[in-house]
């Protein structure tokens, strides 16, 4: 079984996670830039984060046999901090990079005018750079947030089939599906979906445009939830091919819209003890 986790924050995860993910079948992932938990105070720390997603983290992933691509953006929460917003001016030179397969994650947090501006500007940046966009839907006031998101996408030059609406659930899936966007489900304890509810949605909406991710980060989360969904799909009667479509071919198709997805590791993974990362550094 091959698994592509289309939304996971490996920066917050350990090498044990990489190893367990590999053992569970994960061979590729996309890491969106995000809020680090501690608020940033300047654009410079975004740039260090972006550099990490284009340098250290892909290196770390490759050592565990996993290809790493990223999505870059000003996240919705920090779009509200005027000290952070100037990072939008730096984004174009980053969005030109190999390894960047989407603008993201963008979207709404508290549904503010500043978030309207950042979302619209970054959908435009995605179109300018030939990239799709990973757009998450807010945790609070989700349905209103989804509708406002869909409106902003419609007003943008980015076609809906180049947008992945993420963190969807039972209350938002129908309108999201009607929008023509790709549909993302984060299987994340307590606050988002679980594998059984995700399978129920797959039964109702089909496997055609649905992506499943762990969204694992610094919170109580689990990078192996993608595999849990695959297993639950098989138990529920889906075929191996269905599983491959949802857990591999759909993310490949979506991020492949960038023309920058390279799923062959350039060097074989170094899985033995010769490496300082695996050994715990200096």
């Amino acid at each position, binding site marked *: 079984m091959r698994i592509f986790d289309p939304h996971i924050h490996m920066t917050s995860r350990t090498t044990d996670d990489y190893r367990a993910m590999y053992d569970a079948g994960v061979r590729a992932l996309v890491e969106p830039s995000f809020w680090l938990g501690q608020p940033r105070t300047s654009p410079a720390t975004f740039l260090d984060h972006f*550099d990490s997603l*284009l*340098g*250290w983290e*892909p*290196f770390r992933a490759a050592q565990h046999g996993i290809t790493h691509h990223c999505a870059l953006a000003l996240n919705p929460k920090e779009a509200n901090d005027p000290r952070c917003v100037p990072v939008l001016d730096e984004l174009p*030179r980053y969005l*030109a*990079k*190999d*390894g960047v397969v989407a603008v993201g994650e963008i979207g709404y947090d508290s549904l503010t005018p500043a978030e309207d501006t950042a979302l619209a500007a970054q959908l435009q940046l995605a179109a300018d750079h030939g990239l799709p966009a990973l757009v998450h839907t807010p945790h609070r006031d989700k349905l209103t947030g989804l509708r406002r998101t869909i409106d902003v996408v419609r007003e943008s030059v980015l076609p809906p089939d180049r947008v992945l609406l993420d963190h969807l659930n039972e209350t938002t899936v129908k309108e999201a599906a009607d929008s023509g966007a790709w549909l993302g489900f984060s299987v994340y304890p307590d606050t988002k979906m679980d594998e059984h509810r995700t399978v129920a949605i797959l039964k109702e909406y089909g496997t055609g445009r649905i992506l499943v991710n762990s969204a694992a980060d610094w919170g109580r989360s689990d990078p192996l939830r993608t595999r849990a969904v695959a297993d639950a799909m098989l138990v529920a009667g889906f075929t191996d091919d269905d599983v491959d479509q949802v857990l591999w071919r759909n993310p490949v198709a979506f991020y492949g819209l960038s*023309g*920058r997805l*390279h799923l*062959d590791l*350039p*060097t074989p993974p*170094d899985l033995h003890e*010769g*490496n*300082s*990362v695996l050994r715990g*550094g*200096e």
Partner: protein
Amino acid sequence: MLTEPTRAWLDSALGEAATGTPAWEPYFVAAGRHCGPAHADEARTRLLRAAGAGPDTLARLYHHGTAAERRAVLLALPALVPGPEALPLVEDALRTHDTTLIAAALGPYAATHLPAHAWRHALLKCLFTGVPVTAVAGLAERAAGDTELARMLIDHAAERTAAGRPLPDGLSRVLALTTPAEES
């Protein structure tokens, strides 16, 4: 082998680079997706040489670059920078733990210009991170007669042995190089 469309892309990129205007830099950035990861280093270093990129341009491209772009800058240094002014880039790469950057930093440019203390630490770092010492340019020449390097290697070996760990590949080979060659 480059495919035909890739070769055409690279030819036009090299043509831009030869004009001496910055219009070639986006080609440098995008070389990975056009040439494939396996050919990106070669494409980028050729672009840097075609453009005759000087220390200031190289430093900017390095600091604005992904790991792959940084690696290409490091690989191009011996052909493009005769003096030591690009050493800060080598030192930056040697501070990382990305073995592809460490290996690229220890080419002929470092062999010529890196001061002894930094060079010895770089060599030890290779042993530590699993970069094969065969990747280090000028290894035999610089190691020859370096008693301080020999001491560091012996101390490192003692530390490994005390911990019950095997010696890293290459340690005894470099240690042998530090002693003046009596027999071959």
